[in-house]
């Protein structure tokens, strides 16, 4: 993993010397973009490997959409280098856009365009069977429907179909589930999972942290146009989500027995802290304390406390912690 918010890290290489291994679909180095005087992308480095689902996450205004627009060649960077499939998105826009399928934030289709007509319109010379894609994404029965008559979930699935029509090597999905109800979100997640299972490289832009956790192999967290951290969801949870917490009530005991019990709990492998209050006892530690606490409770021979609760940190917790850190320059990132 690369260090966050780092200084230009292409090691003095010129843009033409950037390495571009075959398994790297997108390579971004030292990318910078400002609007007026506001820096929205700030010396950003990013790699998307072939076959992975990479999540670009961050709050609104983090620079995610501007970054992918520069990757697509829709916006020109102030400085830095972008390579998509080894090509320059501006110089080789024509070639790149044939190989990249996009679902753009805030983009639509003409209201009166029917689903089947959209498929025909966006099918290039090497397009796959559009009818099969419509069937696969549950839109075959909507072929004659105008775009305006479709639900939010159906529209997003249609965008996915259009993004996949021309057998893209990279699919960019920007805020795919924005504004969708939970059921529609699940539908779209399922569609993205199908892409992942098929080995398609996906760059997913989202500020929905549960979405990133559900879909992404790797996540890049952005704030103020810079990379805060990146890694697999599990790595980010380990680094930023803090600890597992197990809480339960102790049976009424005298002071000495209580102190003894707390000492026993404190000695359990993985436990980093024990607190005791009116609400019961709380143990903090690594994931192993789940098993340790369970085993200890069984070993006491007493009934398992009815109020036993285990809080396991997830990616959402990790990223919220990360994104809300007041100063991100001291975040330790493995290399």
């Amino acid at each position, binding site marked *: 993993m690369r260090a966050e918010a780092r200084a230009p890290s292409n090691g003095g290489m010129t843009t033409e010397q950037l390495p571009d291994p075959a398994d790297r679909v997108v390579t971004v180095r030292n990318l910078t973009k400002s609007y007026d005087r506001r820096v929205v992308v700030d010396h950003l480095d990013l790699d998307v490997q072939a076959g992975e689902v990479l999540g670009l996450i961050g709050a609104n205004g983090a620079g995610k959409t501007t970054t992918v627009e520069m990757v697509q060649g829709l916006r020109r960077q102030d400085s830095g280098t972008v390579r998509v499939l080894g090509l320059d998105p501006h110089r080789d826009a024509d070639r790149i856009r044939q190989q990249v399928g996009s679902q753009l934030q805030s983009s639509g289709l*003409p209201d009166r365009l029917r689903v089947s007509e959209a498929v025909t319109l966006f099918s290039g010379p090497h397009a796959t069977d559009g009818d099969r894609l419509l069937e696969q994404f549950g839109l075959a029965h909507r072929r004659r429907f105008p775009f305006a008559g479709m639900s939010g979930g159906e529209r997003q699935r249609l965008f996915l179909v259009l993004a996949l029509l021309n057998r893209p090597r990279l699919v960019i999905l920007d805020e795919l589930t924005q504004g969708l109800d939970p059921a529609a979100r699940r539908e779209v997640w399922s569609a993205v999972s199908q892409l992942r299972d098929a080995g398609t490289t996906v760059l997913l832009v989202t500020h929905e942290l549960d979405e990133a956790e559900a879909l992404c192999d790797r996540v890049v967290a952005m704030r103020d146009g810079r990379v805060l951290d990146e890694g697999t969801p599990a790595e980010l949870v380990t680094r930023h989500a803090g600890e597992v917490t197990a809480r339960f009530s102790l049976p009424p005991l005298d002071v000495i027995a209580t102190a003894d019990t707390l000492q026993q709990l404190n000695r359990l492998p993985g436990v980093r802290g024990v607190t005791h209050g009116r609400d019961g006892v709380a143990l903090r530690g690594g994931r192993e304390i789940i098993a340790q606490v369970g085993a200890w409770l069984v070993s006491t021979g007493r009934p398992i406390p009815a109020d036993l609760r285990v809080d396991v940190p997830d990616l959402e917790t990790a990223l919220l912690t990360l994104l809300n850190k007041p100063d991100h320059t001291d975040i330790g990132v493995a290399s």
Partner: protein
Amino acid sequence: MTTATTPAAEVTATPRRRHRSTTRRLLTTELRLLTRDPLTLTFVLVFPIVTMLIIGGSFGTEPDEAFPVNPSHWYVASYLTVVIGATGLIMLPVHIASYGERGVLRRFAASGFPRWSFALAQLSIGLTAIAVAGVLLLAVAAPVYGIPDVESPLRVAAGILVGSVAFVSIGVLLGTLLPSARAAQAIGLLLFFPSFLLGVGGPPPEVMSEPLREVADKLPLALANQAVREPWLGLGDANGSLVAVTAIAVVATALAARRTAL
């Protein structure tokens, strides 16, 4: 699911043919959508015919002080320009502004549509709409008022062509500049109706006050109308108007092409 990758070499094997094919698909789709647009059908096809039937019959058929020729023929010749104005000032701005508002243009750009495909498609559908609406207008006028003899066919053809290109380009330009379909509709109507009433299909210039006539004569739609009507009815060459409309067409086309490049 199969989302097999496609080698770059295969994808780029025939770029020129691919461009033609993409542009053709876009044009076909746009023409189809045009026929489903009630605003287009109303303003470009129906409005000129209805108003021509009303105004064309309001002043009789005999020339008088206000009209140097049969008034009905005066208006039949004039209303071809109403079609041009309705297409350029209302239909296209609303259509294109709605695309910008909904992100359709971004989608076209991101999907690898050739750079000039959208501009070409809009020019084509604008000219097609004018041609279809113009033919319909004359088909309705023929049995009611008769179609006046064309005194100078080449000049009339040049006037129609240059006027059409000028206003289609103005329409495309407005569509890319205005932020929403509603704004385009408001501005379009604001530009169209004064031009229509003062310069083309309203009262004859002779009944207007001098200052109003001065203004009316210099409106772009009035210049286009003069370039068509004068040589059609044998009232003059209208060379000055034709040159002015040509200049408008060149500037507007250049700006519109630049604004619509994907």
